[in-house]
């Protein structure tokens, strides 16, 4: 079949990318999967330091060993070059031409500034989970997990399993909201089973609704955290503080490839149709990049994208029901675990917002809460906010969540790269 002479190129080896590879191969195409990490699985199925993956990943990962699949770990897309991607790996930079592309670029964690958040020992919730899976020594340490969303439970479970003492899980959402969410889980039996199992494993850990971090305290690293609920504040001595507020879709590569981006919500998502097609012909997108919704949503979307990329819309449509169910669950998540509207009041004037360039809140927002600058471009030119290493991925998403519109432009390289590797292809 001549249309299958070129493989479907899939960026990202998380659930969406793996499902896309399987679907593309089932539909008769070859697949080429690349991922910035040195192991497949994405964030949710991240490989542990002992070399194992979470059990549910096994079936999905098996596709990488299929003869029709080429797997390129530690390959990071840094730019576009005409009808090819520029890809960097430990061996250097190469051009990867594509004819059909599936973007399964996933999401990153929403990290919001608060006093003390730059102290060593303060991480994201998913961040600590990832570090612990990488072997970060946590056994015997006192950990406080805070922020909002189901990721807090998953992170607490991972660090508990690694031998840490989880002192508390502080959840922003109030008890009524959590109860409504728990009740709604009857519609998603698999999710309900997961949630019940998680809570059972964490039964010894206080789960505090309507509670948030006021500040992290410490000199050269975190030594304590001040938590607040409606009754007041209290200080907890701890060795690690993991705070996450949910996830932010990664749309940078799609933006660079001129795919339409839907900026209607707090965080932009890659715009796709019912067949996961972006606005650019031959480029599809699946998973968290098109909207946050968890593993099941990513698997359903990846499956659709993979079949469509291989020219098989009939099979693609069979996954529509699963996707619709996953989308409903995602909306329910977003309602329960939203960033509180008054969050900005917790930030001190000297709290750093841009961690790369050390730009303080006061530099960006006036005492009355209005932005100092007329627009994102002026803010960036004047303060260097978002111009450092992470290119605004952390502070830009945080500012968006706090109602300060970030710069939406994307400039290559997508990730910092050695100049030598840009010259020598």
């Amino acid at each position, binding site marked *: 079949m001549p249309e299958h002479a070129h493989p479907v190129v899939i960026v990202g080896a998380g659930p969406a990318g793996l499902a896309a590879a399987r679907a593309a191969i089932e539909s008769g195409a070859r697949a080429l999967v690349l991922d910035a990490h040195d192991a497949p699985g994405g964030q949710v199925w991240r490989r542990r330091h002992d070399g194992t993956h979470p059990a549910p990943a096994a079936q999905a990962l098996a596709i990488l060993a299929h003869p029709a699949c080429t797997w390129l770990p530690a390959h990071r897309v840094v730019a576009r070059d005409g009808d090819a991607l520029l890809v960097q790996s430990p061996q250097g930079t190469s051009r990867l031409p594509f004819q059909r592309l599936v973007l399964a670029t996933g999401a990153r964690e929403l990290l919001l500034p608060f006093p003390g958040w730059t102290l060593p020992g303060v991480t994201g919730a998913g961040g600590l989970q990832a570090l612990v899976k990488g072997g970060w020594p946590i056994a015997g340490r006192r950990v406080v997990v805070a922020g909002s969303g189901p990721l807090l439970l998953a992170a607490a479970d991972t660090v508990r399993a690694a031998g840490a003492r989880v002192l508390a899980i502080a959840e922003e959402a109030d008890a009524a909201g959590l109860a409504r969410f728990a009740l709604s889980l009857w519609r998603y039996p698999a999710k309900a089973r997961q949630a019940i199992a998680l809570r059972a494993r964490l039964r010894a850990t206080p789960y505090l609704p309507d509670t948030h971090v006021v500040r992290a305290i410490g000199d050269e*690293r975190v030594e304590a955290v001040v938590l607040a609920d409606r009754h007041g504040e209290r200080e907890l001595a701890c060795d690690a503080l993991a705070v996450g507020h949910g996830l932010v879709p990664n749309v940078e590569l799609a933006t660079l490839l001129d795919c339409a981006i839907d900026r209607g919500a707090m965080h932009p998502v890659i715009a796709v149709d019912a067949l996961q097609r972006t606005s650019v012909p031959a480029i599809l997108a699946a998973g968290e990049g098109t909207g946050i919704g968890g593993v099941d949503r990513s698997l359903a979307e990846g499956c659709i994208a993979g079949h469509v990329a291989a020219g098989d819309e009939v099979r693609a449509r069979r996954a529509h029901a699963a996707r619709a169910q996953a989308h409903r669950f995602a909306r329910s998540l977003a309602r329960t675990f939203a960033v509180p509207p008054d969050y900005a009041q917790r930030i001190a004037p000297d709290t750093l917002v841009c961690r*790369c360039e050390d730009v303080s809140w006061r530099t960006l927002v006036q005492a009355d809460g209005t932005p100092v600058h007329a627009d994102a471009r002026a803010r960036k030119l004047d303060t260097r906010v978002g111009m450092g290493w992470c290119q605004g991925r952390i502070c830009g998403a945080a500012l968006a969540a706090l109602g300060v519109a970030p710069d939406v432009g994307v400039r290559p390289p997508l990730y910092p790269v050695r100049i030598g590797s*840009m*010259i020598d292809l």
Partner: protein
Amino acid sequence: MPNAPLPDLLIAGAGIVGTACALAAAEAGLRVVVVEPGAIGAGATAAGMGHLVALEDDPAEFALSALSLRMWNRHADLPEAEFSRCGTLWIAADEAELAAVAPKREAYLARGIAAELIDAPTLARLEPNLRGGLAGALRVPDDAIVYAPRVARVLLDRARALGARVVQGRRVVAMDAGGVRLDDGSRLAAARTLLACGVDTRTLVPELPLRPRKGHLLITERAPGFVRHQLIELGYLASAHGNSDSSVAFNVQPRPTGQVLIGSSRQYGVEDAAVEPAMLRRMLARARTYLPTIGELTALRAWTGFRPATTDGLPLIGPWPPVPGLWLATGHEGLGITTALATARLVVDAMTGATAPIDPTPYWPARVLSPVGDEGRDPRAAPIPAPERGHTTDAIAVRETRTPITPPSPASLVIHLDGVPVPCTPGTTLAAAIATGTRRSRTGTMRAPTCGMGVCGECRATVDGIAHVLTCQVRVAPGMRVTSEREPAHA
């Protein structure tokens, strides 16, 4: 509407040229209105290097830049300007280029600008990262660099303090003798209108011989001391004013942040602002022929901009005779930041009847109205075919590596952190093995891994001599040598 006094001057464009004109006009007592569709100083002003340089290849260009450089001294102490008098080193690659240095020096001295010959050993001492075998250089010590977008904002704020009004978020779409029409349909009346909107001036005065010259720039992570002067190859001018559709030149600048700003490329006939990897590659490869270790630096961000280029290489400053009351201040190409202040001087002196410090006639826009036969026409005015874009012949080099998904062996190994041995378990990430901070931010605060997934960059360290490695993304290997990093503060 109450009878507000008619503005004396409406300026379209709040880049470095427009804001300089606004301040000079306000200081001369004119009632000024500035219209800017975007952010202040966010067009060509933000896309340039901010190099304040005297270029001596054309007498008129030299006069304008020399006057402007003296005027820039007024802003040297402005914190927002990040003014740095690093000087320029014009690099002579060989004896032939070196022969051109002596007359170039004479030209500078004749204008009262200091310039000194630098021999090869001194050059090597001044800039140790330059390759060996270079013939020498001409040093122009008073050349400087500024951060132009912020200067533009300060100039505009000062003009505002003197009564200037700023209409931001609106674009001038048409002019007539009595004022302008904006994109929301409203009309602003003014005695005179000055177009200082760079390449966009074409849309308002299509007959102007103005074309966009696209340029690429790339900035690195902080690497203080890597270069100490603005370094430019002597061949730059030939390339800058050359006739070819696309060219690159070695042109590298030390930013006060410690970052290295790498130029320069120039292309005609391209209207797409996208960064072109092929052009970037040529530009960086050129830089590496002069700075062999520049490949070790980390590229943070690349961008492009469009300079307004005229056919004769001189800016258009002064009244535009076909439309009474219409003035121009554009066409500065790569010298807009250097010559913005002198441009403003010439504009306002001409408007107020004051005597200009230099002869303004070479820059008068009226010159482009003179009828010229085909023979006398500057060949650069000829239509330029679009340059080749993209690559079709590059080898496809994708390695097909298959890593088996098998557990690593449990044997223990040792790495070194800042010289101290650290035992660790195979399979762990480097960040986990170190389990502490390896980075201090530019204000000196200690940082440690935060996102765990290669986004935030807080886990960076130098690993086996390679700077800025994300330690959360690599796994330990025997004998790895890890060094903490400290982000340099601004100079």
